[in-house]
C-alpha cells in the first residue's frame, strides 16, 4: 500500500453561505460568508490562513458556473498566502481538495481555505437551464464538447443520458431504479432545513414528470442553485484544539486513466470513477464494507449508480438491484446523500457533499443524523474526470 501523504490533513472547519434559487447576491459576497464561517468554525482567524484553493478559478463568460477568482477572494478576506491555486483540469472538483492536501503534505501551507461557489440559479435568469448549458453552437461548456453541438448535444443531460441508456441496455437498469435515487434523496432533503426542495415526492410525480432527454425526466437533473461552501483543511499538527471534532482525511483517489473524452470512452456504462475509486482504495486499509455514509456526486440521478458500482458497494452493473432493495435509504446498509444531494438540496457542485459528510461525521446533522457515522466517502465528477475522498472521525493510525 502506498503511503498516503494526505493522511496528515484534517478538515478543521466548514462554512456554507445562504443557499437558494436566485438569491440575487454576488458570488464574492456568498464566498466571503462561507469562508469566514469556515475559518471561525475551525477556531482560526483569517491571518492564520496561509493557503487558498478554489475550483475552477474564474472563467470569463461563465462566471455563474465558475464563481470568483481566488485572487478576488484573497483580496476580499485580506489573506497573506504562501499557496494559492485554482484550475479545472484535474480530478473534477475533488482536485481542489487534493491540491489543498498536497500543499499541506509538502509543507507549502498549514491551513488551506478551499471553496466552491456557484450562482447558476441567478445566472440562468429567465432563460432556463439552457442559458447555463451554452446551447449556442458557437460556444460551449468547453470547446472539447463542440462536436456535440451540431447534433443537439447542448447539455450535460445529453452527455450523461448517453451513458445511462447504454447501462439500461446492458444491465436492464430502468427508470424505476433512477426513481429510487430521486425519491430517497427527496426524503432526506425533507430533514435538511437548507435544502431547496423539501416537499415529499411520490413515484407517480416522478413517472409523470416531463422528459428532458431519455431516459432523464426533470427530477433526474440536479437543481441549479446560488451558494458557496468552504472548508479549512489543516495540517493535523497545526490545527487548534477546537470545539468541533476534526475530520481526518484517510485517502484520496485522483487517477485519470481512460481517454479524456466523453464520447471516446471505451465502456460507456461507467466513468473515470472506476479509476479514481480503485486509486483511493489502494491508499488505505479501509474497504467498502467499512463505509458508514456515502455522499455521491449526483449531477444526475444516474451518477449515483455509476459511483455505487465504481466504489465497490455493489458489483458492476448491479446498482439497480442495490437501489431496489432500499440500501441507500437512511435506514439502509449505506445511507447516500443524506442531505438531499444536488437533486433536491441544490447543485453546490460537489462541495455540498463534503459539507454534509463533515456534518454527519461530527454528529451534527440533527434530524437527519445517521448512525454509525465514523467513515464517509465523498465522490465528485462525471464522465472521464473523477475524484473521491475517504474521511474518518478517528486518526488514520486506528485503521492500520
Amino acid at each position, binding site marked *: 500500500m502506498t503511503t498516503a501523504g494526505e493522511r496528515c490533513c484534517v478538515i478543521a472547519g466548514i462554512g456554507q453561505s445562504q443557499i437558494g434559487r436566485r438569491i440575487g447576491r454576488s458570488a464574492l459576497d456568498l464566498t466571503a460568508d462561507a469562508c469566514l464561517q469556515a475559518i471561525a468554525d475551525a477556531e482560526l482567524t483569517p491571518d492564520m490562513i496561509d493557503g487558498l484553493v478554489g475550483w475552477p478559478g474564474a472563467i470569463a463568460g461563465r462566471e455563474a458556473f465558475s464563481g470568483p477568482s481566488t485572487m478576488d477572494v484573497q483580496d476580499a478576506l485580506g489573506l497573506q498566502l504562501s499557496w494559492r491555486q485554482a484550475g479545472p483540469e484535474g480530478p473534477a472538483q475533488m482536485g481542489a481538495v487534493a491540491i489543498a492536501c498536497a500543499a499541506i503534505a509538502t509543507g507549502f501551507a498549514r491551513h488551506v481555505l478551499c471553496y466552491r461557489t456557484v450562482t447558476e440559479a441567478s445566472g440562468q435568469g429567465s432563460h432556463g437551464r439552457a442559458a447555463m448549458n451554452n*446551447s449556442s453552437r458557437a460556444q460551449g461548456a468547453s470547446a472539447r464538447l463542440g462536436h456535440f453541438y451540431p*447534433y443537439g448535444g*447542448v447539455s450535460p443531460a445529453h452527455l450523461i443520458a448517453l451513458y445511462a*441508456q*447504454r447501462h439500461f441496455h446492458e444491465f436492464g437498469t430502468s427508470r424505476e431504479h433512477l426513481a429510487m435515487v430521486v425519491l430517497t434523496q427527496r426524503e432526506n432533503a425533507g430533514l435538511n432545513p437548507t435544502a431547496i426542495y423539501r416537499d415529499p415526492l411520490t413515484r407517480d410525480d416522478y413517472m409523470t414528470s416531463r*422528459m428532458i432527454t431519455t431516459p432523464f425526466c426533470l427530477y433526474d437533473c440536479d437543481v441549479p442553485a446560488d451558494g458557496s461552501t468552504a472548508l479549512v483543511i489543516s495540517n493535523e499538527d497545526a490545527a487548534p484544539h477546537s470545539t468541533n471534532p476534526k475530520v481526518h482525511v484517510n485517502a484520496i483517489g485522483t487517477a485519470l486513466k481512460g481517454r479524456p473524452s466523453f464520447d*471516446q470512452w471505451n465502456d460507456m456504462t461507467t466513468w473515470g470513477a472506476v479509476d479514481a475509486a480503485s486509486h483511493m482504495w489502494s491508499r488505505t486499509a479501509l474497504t467498502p464494507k467499512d463505509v458508514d455514509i456515502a455522499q455521491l456526486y449526483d449531477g444526475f440521478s444516474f451518477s449515483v449508480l455509476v459511483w455505487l458500482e465504481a466504489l465497490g458497494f455493489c458489483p458492476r452493473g448491479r446498482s439497480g438491484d442495490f437501489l431496489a432493495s432500499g440500501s441507500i435509504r437512511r435506514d439502509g446498509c449505506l445511507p447516500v446523500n443524506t442531505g438531499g444531494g444536488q437533486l433536491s438540496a441544490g447543485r453546490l457542485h460537489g462541495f455540498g457533499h463534503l459539507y454534509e459528510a463533515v456534518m454527519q461525521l461530527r454528529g451534527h446533522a440533527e434530524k437527519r443524523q445517521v448512525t454509525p457515522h465514523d467513515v464517509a466517502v465523498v465522490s465528485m465528477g462525471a464522465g472521464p474526470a473523477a475524484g473521491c475522498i475517504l474521511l474518518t472521525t478517528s486518526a488514520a493510525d486506528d485503521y492500520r
Partner: protein
Amino acid sequence: MPERVSGLGNLYTFTANVHRWADEIDPQYVLAIVSLSEQDHLHIVTNIVGCSLDEVRIGMPVEVAFDLTDEAAIPVFRPVH
C-alpha cells in the same frame, strides 16, 4: 494519419431529446454515438435519421448519410435495411 472509413457502424447508445433548449433548435431529435465498423471503441457523435423513434435500437446497423447545410456536410446515420 487519417484513414478513409466505410461509413458503416452500429448504434452504440442514444438519447431521444424532448426538452426545447433554444428557440432555434427543434426539440425532436435523436442524439447518438455510433461505433464505426473499422475499429473497436472508435465512436462518432451523430444523429439518427430516417426512422421513427420506435425503430431506434442499440446495436442496430447504421450507415452514414450527409446533412448538407450552407456551411458544411454534416455526417448523420440512418438504419441499414
